[in-house]
């Protein structure tokens, strides 16, 4: 049996990878994917805890999260398209109409 901490550390690492991806990638699509990665890392945490606590709640929650993540992804992509229409670019660093 793999100890709980391993899962937690793994999910933390995945979460961190997601965070870093969001922070440094210059393409909105990849940034979106990184966010998904963060959410999935959390899912992993939930499952690990559910497993170690022996409760089903965690597992159920994951379904909720997946649904939410899907909704977010849809919206996200729509927004990205809308932005792309105005800018012809997907680089978040170029989007600086609004500042200060």
């Amino acid at each position, binding site marked *: 049996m793999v100890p709980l901490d391993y899962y937690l550390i793994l999910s933390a690492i995945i979460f961190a990878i997601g965070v870093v991806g969001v922070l440094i990638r210059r393409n909105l699509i990849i940034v979106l994917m990184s966010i998904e990665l963060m959410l999935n890392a959390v899912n992993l945490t939930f499952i690990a805890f559910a497993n170690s606590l022996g409760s089903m709640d965690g597992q159920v929650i994951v379904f909720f999260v997946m649904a939410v993540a899907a909704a977010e992804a849809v919206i996200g992509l729509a927004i990205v398209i809308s932005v792309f229409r105005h800018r012809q670019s997907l680089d978040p*660093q170029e989007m600086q*109409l609004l500042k200060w």
Partner: protein
Amino acid sequence: MVASTSTVATLELLRWIPLIPLCACAINIFFGRALGHRTAGVLASAAVGVSLALALYVFWLLPATGIFHDLLYTWIESGSFRVNLSFQVDALTAIMLLVVTGIGFLIHIYSLGYMAHDDGKVRFFIYLNLFIFFMLLLVMGDNLLLLFVGWEGVGLCSYLLVGFWYHDAKNTIAGNKAFIVNRIGDLGFILGIFLLVTELGRQGIWTLDFAELPKHVSLLTPATITLITLLLFVGAVGKSAQIPLFVWLPDAMAGPTPVSALIHAATMVTAGVYMTARLHFLFAPAPYTLSIIAIIGAATAFFAATVAIAQNDIKKVLAYSTVSQLGYMFLAVGIGAFSAAIFHLFTHAFFKACLFLGSGSVIHALDGEQDMRKMGGLRSYLPKTYWTYVIATLAIAGVPLTAGFFSKDLILWQAFSHGSYALWLVGVVTAGLTAFYMFRQLFMVFHGSSRVEDHVKPHIHESPAVMTVPLIVLAIGSIFTGWLGAPEYLWGSLWDRWVQPVFGGAHGAEHGPVTTEILVTLVTVAIVAIGIYLAYARYARTGTRVVPAEAAAGLYRVLLNSYWIDEFYDRIAVRPFTRVSQWLAQIFDPLVIDGLVNGVAKVARGFSLIWREAQTGNVQHYLIGFLAATLALLIYYLRQL
């Protein structure tokens, strides 16, 4: 220390003495223009005339040791402190009343003629009546604060009248100077009042009444009394133009001449003497103060006399002479001879008023010319003026049997018999100087050949009766008022018998050996004679010998410019103060104080502008900020664990 044995009686008549001029003043303010110039002037004069009549009546009623009292209402009451608006008349006040209303009345009459052609005649009489009111308040007030009100009020009128011809900025500046220098003195005065009130208040006595104060003087320590009297004397120095605050009086000659006669010779400037005499019970137990007063008085007398020698302006000579004569009065006060001081005040009022009015008559005749170098030989043109002027000059010079002789001699004798030989010597020398400069003036103006400018010459005329009659009355006074206070070796002093009760037994005339007294008098007379002779030798015979100011050298220049005292004050006080104010107003206030206030706002704005750069618009920067904050919190937590 003085047991008040006087009987107090209520006399409601008193209030009308000051109120009638005030009413006339009010009527002229509102209806003066409608009444017309002439009527306004007559009304004003009549009001003072009525006051004079009332004053004479009161004088007649007043028993030797009695006091009349008239309470109007409580003026200020705060806690235990209480001051009434009420008047009192005792022997001292009665004399002052007569001087103020009597001379005031004459000068009002005189002004009817003198100001006849002036546009501001109504205004002039308004001011004049107001002055009479305040002056009466000053002498009749039954407490120190009321005296102070009058004191400030006459200062106001002096300001207004000196700057009467406001078109010329110079006059207003002179008025301002008079008021401000007086205020410097008043600062001392009011602080003296405060000290008196609070020190007595500490003992549970809250009063400023002249009737009450003497009873409580013993509660005060000698040091306190000295300080109080010194402070009060500072006020007197300002009002009576003594060293070092005399500088305003010569400038104040910018006012119309009747004003100079009334305010700056006969009445207002003597208020300081009156005040010290009124508070003799405070001053008498303050030997240190008295000696300072005596020294300042003597110094002023001498110093002003020297300056008067060199002046060429007919009124300036008289102004410095007034300063000098006031010095005599303070000299008398300083040696404790209050009665003598008031006596000199009384006689001086007549002859100095006469001199001023006479000079006014001359100026009037010469179309406003005041420079004695442009006069001369006026004797024949202005006979009445001339003769009254001669009489007054004899009086002020102290020629025997004139008023000035008696009063000045009394002071000098008191100084001598008091043992203050140095003061006496200064007094005698000053008497000589006085004789010299007065006769110098007389000769320069009336004798010798005429130096009057040609365009003025045809218009020279004797003044109308409305001006000469007051002159004559005053000239008569200049001789006979002195006879009231003749020394014991002649027919004795009526004056002392009248005034002495006010000052209690403290300072009766000291009676030394009669021979000494006569000897001392003879010394004075001799010196006066020398002064007259020198003036005669130098000015009467040559007549035309006049030293132009530019060519003047050495001592003469020093005297002509009155020792450059004005410039000295300007250098050490006025300019530094102006510079400090300027620095405060133009640098410190806007840049430092306001700068701090605005600085706070600027700093906030600056922070705002800098910090706002953090909002770069780049979403990933935001996220980094987010993450950094999260990590910081995380680290904080983990360290807590």
